[in-house]
């Protein structure tokens, strides 16, 4: 005790001495007078400085009178204090950087203050993002960012949404999804709960830095990081129930379907139903049989998502650790998804110059998917058939079963019970970056990631199942594995000369990925076994691998004068293995300028927070092209008589080169009286040298050759407006609204060409929009005959239209442009109302101007072609032709030739307004939470997809806009229905 006292006195003495000579000490606190650890303090214009300790205290030596100390901390305004007297003890109260303009925004390889931005960039914090529990950042962005269209085209558990930024800029590209950049490195995975902020880069002023990968826009994800201070734990739970949303599809009951069937027996001469024959073929008691196929195949399903994290740190080390668990049952029989993910982010400061970040992320998932045919039959089963026996077990039904009416003699309930369609996956990535501050104006950083994934798909049909694999069984197992490495090495420069402020970077990047895939398919498996070694007849074994590599040089200069005029210029060079040697290197420049008009003296009005004009121009490229499209190849993956066989596969084109997109953007940002925030952007993006599959005469033995030809022009405007309608202490109400319009035109394609799937065609033609439907035009029903009618257009020698007539002969009908799959307008609306501890939140999204080909109606709104499929209740105002003079929407079943052939009959408007989220949250007062030993506690309830306003007469109008081997954009086939969800949310900090 004595010794200790001595030491203590000594310490006081020493500190007194030093203080006397050149010391400033004190404490830094936040707005609530809580000490802030880790605040940076430097003496202006030197590199001398320190940071506050765990209790917010600091002690800085060698300070001279008139020196200025700068106190800075992320999320707070930097404060400068002039030292008038030495020694001195001061208390600094940091003020939160509520001023939006001072917030730091990540824009790729660098970060900027909001006020310095000269590009179309939108930044969202996790609070604005996480209004629904989701595994997919796309669905979290829906309706929130102008220019970002999000389509949730399936409700399958674990399925991702489709995200499009400013339209679609490629035809052949395998993928129009934006580039994701996680924690500063291209690619990467994350759990949405780990997101600290999301930045959407929309124009080439910023995206050109990502060069050949950036055509579809860039989404930058910053995951959470630790803060110096005591450990804060957070726990979140979202649990609830979901229900299949069948949209406007209601299948007929037994009586309705009986009445529909009677139409098959309408006598073509006297126009009466031939009841004698009908009752003979369809006994009357059928109409009382009422099995609810849809209700039995789709059931309410349980949903749970839990998240736990800890963050904290000291002067040397800060950390963020999280884990989440997701258990998602599907509404369709035997479908589900489970995922677990872990993340650890740490920052270690070796000293003032060198710091190292280590981010580790691991995730694993598995789930049960479904077979398309099982879903189709679940909708189309006839209500007079009961697929279950007296004990409630699904019946075995096959082609030899009598007393079964539904077409194809298949019982989907039995199939589901005797098949497996599951998948699982595992992914891991490790990021390591080191920042080395060489001197005041020069920093070197190296950022590196190594990642891997492995996944497996498993499709199994038991020998017990009816159908083609009965008594045999079937198995298809597919395994994929991949590694990727990327390294980025950058020098950052920062220098000011009076009013001229300059920053810049120069760097090198190299990435390489390797993938491999293998599968086995076969039949003849004993019941109870579903592994490859149980297969007795292998029908196919396959496997392939590949490597892709890209190396890049990057550079960027940012200059501003008096923080009023801003210029950013960047230049990236990419060389990729995708192209022939001579065409490998591509150059991607970008430039943007902005002018903060409100900083000019002539506009120095107090109510004007911000008036900024921005212009940007740049070039980006498309990454999603195949690996070897320029080679003339034989493909060797088939067999004849058990021996290897090669098939002519691809024509050579050694001139193939990059698709390039020129992007021009003009924008205005306006802020008034801290109440109104408004942004307007107008852009014109031209993708040139599209890599097209140029059709070849089939008589050459090839369908197409990859060539650079044609352009896509995307023009658009974007408006976003957010307002603080009420801003009182206990009542706060903000709303935001956004709208985007995009038009999409093809040019210089040359000869037009078509894509056709299931007989439905889309045409690619100069002047046409992308994904334009090209079909006979439906002209309704001939009121004299009851026959379907299409338009027949007659042209003269010059190709001018001279007549438009109706024909009931489908082969005479003229193919023409009848609609397009991409929306003209998309957007959303958000309202956030806080009254005392209650927060009411609403989010709506909408889409307007697209057409959907309702393919499902060719099955379930049919004219008697399919007497043994159940039908849906037809749209209001529908009628079927019965006798001459009837003005009907549906042809006579006696005169229905080819009425279901592809035509604009099935094309419907896809407009919708969807109430995406409604939620109510209660935040407990701090003192209440404290009684429970908690830092914060909130409880909430949320409803998702509560209602969709639409005239579309099918399943939910959110329809696939991907183009791939089996799906055409804008065609709605039977799909996994979306979900209406009702959730309970709990959020605890301790």
């Amino acid at each position, binding site marked *: 005790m004595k010794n200790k006292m001595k030491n203590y006195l000594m310490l006081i003495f020493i500190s007194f001495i030093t203080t006397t000579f050149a010391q400033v000490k004190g404490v830094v606190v936040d707005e609530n007078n809580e000490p802030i650890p880790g605040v940076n303090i430097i003496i202006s214009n030197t590199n001398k400085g320190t940071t506050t300790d765990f209790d917010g205290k600091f002690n800085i030596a060698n300070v001279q009178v008139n020196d200025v100390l700068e106190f800075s901390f992320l999320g707070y305004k930097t404060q400068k204090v002039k030292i008038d007297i030495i020694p001195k003890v001061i208390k600094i109260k940091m003020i939160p950087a509520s001023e939006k303009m001072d917030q730091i925004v990540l824009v790729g390889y660098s970060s900027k203050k909001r006020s310095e931005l000269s590009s179309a960039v939108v930044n969202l914090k996790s609070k604005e993002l996480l209004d629904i529990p989701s595994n997919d950042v796309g669905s979290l962005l829906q309706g929130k960012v102008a220019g970002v269209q999000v389509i949730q085209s399936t409700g399958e558990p674990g399925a991702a949404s489709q995200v499009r930024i400013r339209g679609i800029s490629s035809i052949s590209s395998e993928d129009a999804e934006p580039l994701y950049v996680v924690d500063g490195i291209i690619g990467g995975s994350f759990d949405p709960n780990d997101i600290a902020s999301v930045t959407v880069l929309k124009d080439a002023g910023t995206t050109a830095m990502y060069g050949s990968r950036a055509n579809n826009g860039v989404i930058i994800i910053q995951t959470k990081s630790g803060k110096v201070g005591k450990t804060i734990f957070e726990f979140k739970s979202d649990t609830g129930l979901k229900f299949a949303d069948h949209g406007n599809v209601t299948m007929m009951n037994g009586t309705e379907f009986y009445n529909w069937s009677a139409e098959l027996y309408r006598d073509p001469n006297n126009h009466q139903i031939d009841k004698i024959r009908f009752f003979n073929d369809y006994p009357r008691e059928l109409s009382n049989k009422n099995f609810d196929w849809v209700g039995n195949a789709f059931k309410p399903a349980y949903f749970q998502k839990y998240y736990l994290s800890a963050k904290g740190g000291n002067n040397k080390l800060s950390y963020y650790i999280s884990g989440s668990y997701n258990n998602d049952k599907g509404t369709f029989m035997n479908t589900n998804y489970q995922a677990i993910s872990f993340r650890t982010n740490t920052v270690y400061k070796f000293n003032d110059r060198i710091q190292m970040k280590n981010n580790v992320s691991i995730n694993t998932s598995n789930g049960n998917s479904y077979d398309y045919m099982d879903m189709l039959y679940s909708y189309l089963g006839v209500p007079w058939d009961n697929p279950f026996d007296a004990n409630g077990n699904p019946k075995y039904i096959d082609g030899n*079963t009598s007393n079964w009416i539904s077409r194809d003699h298949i019982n989907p309930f039995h199939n589901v019970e005797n098949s497996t369609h599951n998948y699982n996956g595992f992914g891991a990535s490790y990021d390591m970056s080191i920042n080395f501050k*060489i001197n005041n104006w020069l920093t070197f950083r190296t950022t590196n990631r190594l990642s891997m994934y492995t996944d497996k798909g498993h499709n199994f049909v038991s020998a017990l199942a009816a159908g083609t694999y009965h008594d045999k069984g079937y198995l298809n197992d597919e395994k994929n594995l991949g590694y990727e490495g990327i390294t980025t090495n950058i020098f950052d420069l920062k220098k000011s000369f009076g009013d001229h402020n300059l920053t810049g970077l120069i760097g090198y990047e190299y990435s390489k990925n390797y993938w491999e895939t293998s599968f086995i398919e076969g039949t003849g498996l004993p019941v109870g076994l579903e592994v490859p070694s149980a297969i007795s007849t292998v029908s196919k074994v396959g496997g392939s691998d590949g490597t892709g590599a890209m190396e890049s040089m990057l550079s960027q200069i940012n200059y501003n004068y008096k923080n009023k005029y801003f210029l950013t210029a960047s230049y990236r060079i990419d060389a990729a293995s995708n192209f022939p040697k001579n065409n*490998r290197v591509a150059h991607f420049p970008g430039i943007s300028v902005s002018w903060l008009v409100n900083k000019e003296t002539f506009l120095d009005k107090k109510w004007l927070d911000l008036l900024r004009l921005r212009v940007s121009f740049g070039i980006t490229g498309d990454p999603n092209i195949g690996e070897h499209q320029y080679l003339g190849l034989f493909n060797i993956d088939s*067999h*004849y008589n058990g021996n290897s*066989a090669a098939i002519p596969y691809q024509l050579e084109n050694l001139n193939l080169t990059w698709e390039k997109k020129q992007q021009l953007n003009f924008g205005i940002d306006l802020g008034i009286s801290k109440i109104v925030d408004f942004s307007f952007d107008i852009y014109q993006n031209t993708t040139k040298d599209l890599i097209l599959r140029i*059709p070849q*005469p089939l008589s050459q033995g090839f369908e197409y050759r990859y060539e650079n030809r044609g352009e896509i022009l995307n023009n658009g405007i974007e408006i976003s407006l957010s307002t603080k309608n009420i801003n009182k202490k206990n009542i706060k109400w903000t709303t935001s609204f956004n709208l985007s319009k995009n038009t999409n035109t093809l040019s210089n394609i040359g000869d037009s060409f078509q894509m056709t799937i299931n007989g439905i065609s889309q045409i690619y033609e100069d002047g046409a929009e992308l994904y334009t439907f090209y079909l006979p035009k439906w002209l309704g029903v001939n009121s004299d005959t009851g026959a379907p009618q299409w338009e027949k257009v007659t042209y003269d020698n010059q190709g001018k239209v001279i007549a438009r007539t109706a024909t009931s002969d489908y082969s005479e009908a003229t193919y023409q442009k009848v609609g397009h799959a991409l929306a003209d307008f998309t957007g959303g609306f958000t309202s956030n109302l806080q009254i005392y501890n209650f927060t009411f939140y609403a989010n709506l999204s909408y889409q307007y101007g697209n057409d959907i080909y309702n393919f499902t109606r060719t099955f379930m709104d049919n004219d008697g072609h399919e007497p043994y499929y159940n039908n849906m209740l037809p749209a209001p105002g529908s009628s079927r032709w019965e006798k001459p003079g009837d003005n009907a929407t549906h042809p006579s079943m006696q005169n229905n030739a080819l009425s279901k052939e592809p035509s604009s009959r099935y094309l419907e408007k896809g407009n919708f307004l969807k109430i995406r989220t409604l939620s109510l949250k209660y935040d407990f007062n701090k003192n209440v939470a404290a009684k429970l030993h908690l830092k914060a506690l909130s409880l909430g309830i949320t409803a998702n997809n509560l209602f969709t306003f639409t005239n579309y007469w099918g399943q939910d109008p959110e329809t696939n806009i991907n183009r791939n*081997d089996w799906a055409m954009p804008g065609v709605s086939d039977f799909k996994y229905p979306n979900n209406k969800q009702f959730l309970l949310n709990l959020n605890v900090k301790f």
Partner: protein
Amino acid sequence: MKQYILLLLLIGLTISCAKLDYPPSDSLTTEELLNTPNGLEIITNGNYSLFKDGIEFNGVLDDNNSYLRQYFQMSDFAADDIVCGQVTEDPLYYSFTYTHSPSQANARYFWYASYKIISGANTVINYLENKSNLNDNEKQFLGENYFLRGFVTFSLVKFYAYQYNIGDPNANLGVVLRLSTSEPKEKSRSSVAETYSQVIEDLTTAANLMNTSRGKEYASKEAAWALLSRVYLYMNNYNKVIEYADRVINSGIFNLETSANFPNYYTNTLGSNETIWAIAFTPADNKGKFGSIASMIYSDGNSGWGEEFATYDYMDLLSNNDVRKSLIEPKLDASGDVELKNGLEIYYIKKFSYQDGDPNLSSPVMLRLAEVYLNRAEAKAQLNDEAGALSDINHIRENRGLANELITAVPAGETIVDVVLRERRLELAFEGHRLFDLLRNHQNIVRHYWGYHIPGLNIGDIDLDNPPTSGYDNLDINYDSPRVLYYIPIDEILTNSLCEQNQ
């Protein structure tokens, strides 16, 4: 400080100039492949495999698409041996209804796959024709590829052009002849006569080159002769028919299946001495419910769609002792009655089933001895050699359970040609012959029976006791109607301005 920067720049430079060449793992360039040991064999195998395997077309890998499925459906579904029992999205429906269009998926795929085979064959032909001193092995591959080009071109001209003896073969358009991989993109159609003479040239060259027997899975000298007898039959060149038929028959390699064995012939075509050439399907090639040829015309209750049936018109020709009757299987319900599907009686066809016991598996016969006899019989009949024709016919009947029903004289009101054609129909039904046998003999397609070839028909209309009379469409199609031709695919017309469309 400077040394740090230098060091870092040095690191940057050493990782630069990275390797950026990564060839594909499952493909080879044409040159690489031709210079690989067995390269010729692998390409030739690819040409055979294209008969059985579907490949991606129009962005889709559709199970419904394979050369052989279209080959049989586009011919037999358009004739009068098979009735359509179900309206379907599958384009096979358009073959029944004759609602042909340039964008018809089956006719487009068949054209594409045909020329894909020709492209592969030309790769081998171009390479070996420029090489001197071919060894026997190389000669055999060269011959097989000439054969394949000849077979495929002949099939094309049957589907997309008027038959040789309808109208003027020198004026009627045939198909685009592709003779080399380095031809210009655009090329016009040759006349029907030019197409036939190229086919004959390819097949005679092939016959001279092939001297090795690699098995019935592959082309052979005899296969080329057998096909030549068919080609000359289509051209009404009866002496040549007899010449080449004789060569096959006299080769002594082939025998007709006996009455006892014929019912099982289609379960093991590759093991039969009747087969001259068949496309080999191994169990691994089973295309199942969605892609097999059998699936549309047969089902064991689970194996296929079973939506198309044998017609009464065909079955009425079968006498009770005819063992060919066993290849038709009525589907019976519990009380022993023939079951109905969509109002029609179900009579399944078993010519593409039960290899290795699998209802969807068979190795379809492309050429067999019975056809060669029938070719010769028809030629003899046309040359008024009645006795010779009847002898060939009776040789078949003896082996089909009809030893006691031999034909000794032409029935009253008929000609010897009628007798031969009836036997040809009985014997070769469902094997891709009937449509062309009708057309080239200037006989109309007559389908006065209930079925979904009648547009707009529904089950309420069907009265099995009273066949449809006038008032329904598609009951009669004239042999010289342009409707019979398939259109040149839209893809060819749009990209090859020299290629004329059928009217």
